[in-house]
């Protein structure tokens, strides 16, 4: 969807047009779910938080002032819900870390990249994907959050820094460190 199309869709959503809001769910649910799933490591939790994210959109979209940063606003809601959940779990002493469920849940085979026709290539790709998934689970919450926001929200680091309330240099250094850790994890697994 081009910018004009998104602007028009958001204007209708601000008037709480049900079709426009359903369209927003259709359009953004994959990426928001991806972020939520990778941040929490659990499909059932990601599904609940996906629904809560869009319910917040319905409740608060009137207050959203469209300046071309809808995705930043949307993914901020999703990331904050994950943080709230982590705090809530921490208070209840259930799991202080977000990665309690990491590695327990397999990404559905149907969701894997399409077959390339090269069995060895598929195997390597699958192995790499699995190692990456596991490696992500071993990053700190802050490291995982920043690189997943870049990957799923597709926001420039400057906006991610704003979203997280940190200086750009800190955001970049954190992402760099996270990616170094990921590479080290992959190397260790060899």
């Amino acid at each position, binding site marked *: 969807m081009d910018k004009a199309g998104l602007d028009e869709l958001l204007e209708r959503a601000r008037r709480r047009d049900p079709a426009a809001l359903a369209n927003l769910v259709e359009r953004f649910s994959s990426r928001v779910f991806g972020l939520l799933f990778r941040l929490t490591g659990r499909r059932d939790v990601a599904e609940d938080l996906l629904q809560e994210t869009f319910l917040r959109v319905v409740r608060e979209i009137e207050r959203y002032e469209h300046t071309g940063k809808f995705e930043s606003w949307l993914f901020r809601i999703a990331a904050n819900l994950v943080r709230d959940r982590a705090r809530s779990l921490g208070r209840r002493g259930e799991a202080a870390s977000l990665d309690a469920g990491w590695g327990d849940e397999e*990404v559905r085979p149907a969701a894997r990249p399409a077959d390339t026709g090269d069995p060895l290539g598929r195997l390597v790709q699958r192995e790499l994907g699995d190692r990456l998934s596991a490696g992500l689970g071993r990053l700190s919450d802050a490291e995982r959050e920043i690189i997943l926001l870049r990957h799923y929200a597709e926001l420039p680091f400057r906006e991610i820094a704003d979203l997280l309330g940190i200086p750009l240099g800190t955001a970049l250094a954190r992402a760099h460190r996270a990616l170094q850790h990921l590479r080290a994890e992959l190397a260790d697994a060899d």
Partner: protein
Amino acid sequence: MKDDDLDNLEQQVEREMQLLRHLPPAEPDAACVARVQAAVERETIGVRRKRRNLTVLRSALGLAAALALAVLLTNRSLPTAAPDGGSPEATIAEWAAAWDESSTRVGELLADGLVSGSPAGTSTEQMLDDVLESLDRSLSQLEAL
């Protein structure tokens, strides 16, 4: 950190981010998306109903406040002259006319279905805001007496 250093670091991180291309996609299933859409639709209806009820409540409160002031006024002795130099009787009459008009319009709006639950469009909300503004003006005139 200097701007050049930041730019270089950003370019380096962006290159490193290519690693995540190999991450298996994690998609919600169709049933999940359908559930979210249904929940969003229910929430939309609920939020719109709440807003409509709030609007009606505002108008009812405005009416109640105006009535209370009118009752208070009838129990008070009138000043010898209105603040704008006109006679108190004329000002009261002017206010009463505005009050009649406001009441009639509120009554029409309520009869038009705001209470019965028909969707409140922007124009209807605007009309109601106009009525409330009119009531506010009437009340201001009363307070000035």
